């Protein structure tokens, strides 16, 4: 089954409409709508308990939705579950493993459940063993694998039937930094071949892997956008880093005199709002949105011989966007 065949002419592979999931009185997902285009990598970002896993479990058919619809590859899960599930490879947050099986037995079992058999199954199994780098572990019992290998094996089972859509729930959860790096590389290699929806609460991961980010908070979607747009939309002011070799003693006042400047912070701890002293040579200049002050500052620095060493615009990192969105009432405003 090639992913392209399952596309059925629609450009969105995952379509979620007004999806609500309640557990008794607890609302896990509140009227969520989003879609993922064919071939796209989308990150589902949010703090723990935001409802990411619930969305994923509904999309993979593990949970029924209370109301609303979810479809994968054009097939709705409530009515065409089997057809929809054929398109999905799912790596849950806790890698589901049968500890008493070897790596090859495990993959054979799961391949067989996904309609693979005989030679096709063996070829598919060898393919994912190769892609996920679990070759030297093939005869080991799953319970004896390290966490990193278990995670890879989890990814291998999600890939074995070459699904059009991959749903990865915190694929780097619990891995050490090196394993995390390897896992991310593995996932970025899959980009283009599969439509990927991955969840994470680690921001650099979303930055590194995803083209688009859906930020979830308390069961709702707080924001959906490409990362850069998201940052731009939430920015209330612009910032740039300024490094000077020969700053005059009254540098802070001189910078403040430039029209449009909101504040000057010393480079190291601008976040705490402390003013930069004359002894320091790195500042962050905050200025009004829409005014490009870089040129003006550069001109003055050259004219007055401040010894300009660096002048870099600072973009709001996803981390800040995330905190902005999940901290306060900006949730309503931006969604």
């Amino acid at each position: 089954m090639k992913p392209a065949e399952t596309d059925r002419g629609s450009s969105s592979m995952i379509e979620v409409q007004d999806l609500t999931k309640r557990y008794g009185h607890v609302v896990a997902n509140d009227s969520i709508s989003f879609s993922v285009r064919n071939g796209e990598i989308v990150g589902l970002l949010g703090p723990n308990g935001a409802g990411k896993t619930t969305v994923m479990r509904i999309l993979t058919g593990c949970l029924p939705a209370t109301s609303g619809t979810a479809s994968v590859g054009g097939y709705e899960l409530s009515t065409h579950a089997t057809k929809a599930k054929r398109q999905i490879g799912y790596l849950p947050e806790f890698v589901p493993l049968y500890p008493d099986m070897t790596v090859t037995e495990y993959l054979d079992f799961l391949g067989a459940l996904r309609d693979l058999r005989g030679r096709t199954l063996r070829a598919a199994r060898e393919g994912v063993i190769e892609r996920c780098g679990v070759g030297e572990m093939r005869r080991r019992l799953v319970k004896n694998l390290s966490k990193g290998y278990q995670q890879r094996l989890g990814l291998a089972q999600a890939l074995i039937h070459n699904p059009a859509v991959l749903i990865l729930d915190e694929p780097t959860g619990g891995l050490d930094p090196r394993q995390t790096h390897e896992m991310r590389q593995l996932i970025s290699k899959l980009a283009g071949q599969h439509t990927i929806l991955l969840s994470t609460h680690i921001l650099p991961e979303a930055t590194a892997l995803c083209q688009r980010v859906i930020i979830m908070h308390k069961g709702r979607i707080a924001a959906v956008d490409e990362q850069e747009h998201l940052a731009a939309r939430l920015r209330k002011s612009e910032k740039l880093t300024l490094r000077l070799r020969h700053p005059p003693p009254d540098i802070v006042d001189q910078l403040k005199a430039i029209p449009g400047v909101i504040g000057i912070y010393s480079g190291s701890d601008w976040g705490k709002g402390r003013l930069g002293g004359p002894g320091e040579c790195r500042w962050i200049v905050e200025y009004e949105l829409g005014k490009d002050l870089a040129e003006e500052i550069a001109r003055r620095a050259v004219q007055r011989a401040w010894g300009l060493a660096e002048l870099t615009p600072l973009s709001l990192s996803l981390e800040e966007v995330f905190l902005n969105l999940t901290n306060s009432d900006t949730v309503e405003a931006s969604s």
Partner: protein
Amino acid sequence: MRALWIIARRELWSYLTSPVAYVVSGIFLAVIGFLFYGVAKIASERSMQLLQYQGMVPAFNVVQLVFRPMFHNMALVLVFVVPLLTMRLFAEERRQRTYDLLFSAPIPVISIVGGKFLAALIIYTGLLALTFVLPAMLAQYATFPWTALAAAYVGLWLLGLVFIGVGLFASALTEYQIVAGFIGVGILLALWVIGLITPDADTYGNPEEDRPGCSL
């Protein structure tokens, strides 16, 4: 159907590679062995008495004297044994969180349940078949109608289907195997007791009795 068989095969594999099935079967066979020895001894003593008092070879009814008590008690032992065999089936799947794998696979739920049922049934049938060695031994020393014996086995096998069903249900209720085992034994024992407390229920059962329909 294919998915059902794939699930059943995995479960069988799991039965045969884990010690639980062997330990449970071993204990079951030992208990049944003792039981058989007991009833056979009582039966032979009785026939000796008859021989002494009546001075003739009695009509030694093996079916009445040996098989009835043996199969009746075997059913009671199975009340404890079958839930031990089935307790793992869903509980472990939940504990290892592998049920997400099964539910996200493009297979109907009936093949997941059916596959597990089939695997347990195959193990159960094997267990029952092993007990056949006891009547086979008895056949060396006594004659009895094989059809009655076959009917007893069919009855016990059908009873096993019920036990496995109940055990599977209990296993689906919890993620702890032990709890699932206790729930299974509890339900079966309760159904068993319903049969016992009915006023005119005699130990070996009487088809004309008016027992509640749910007793075992």
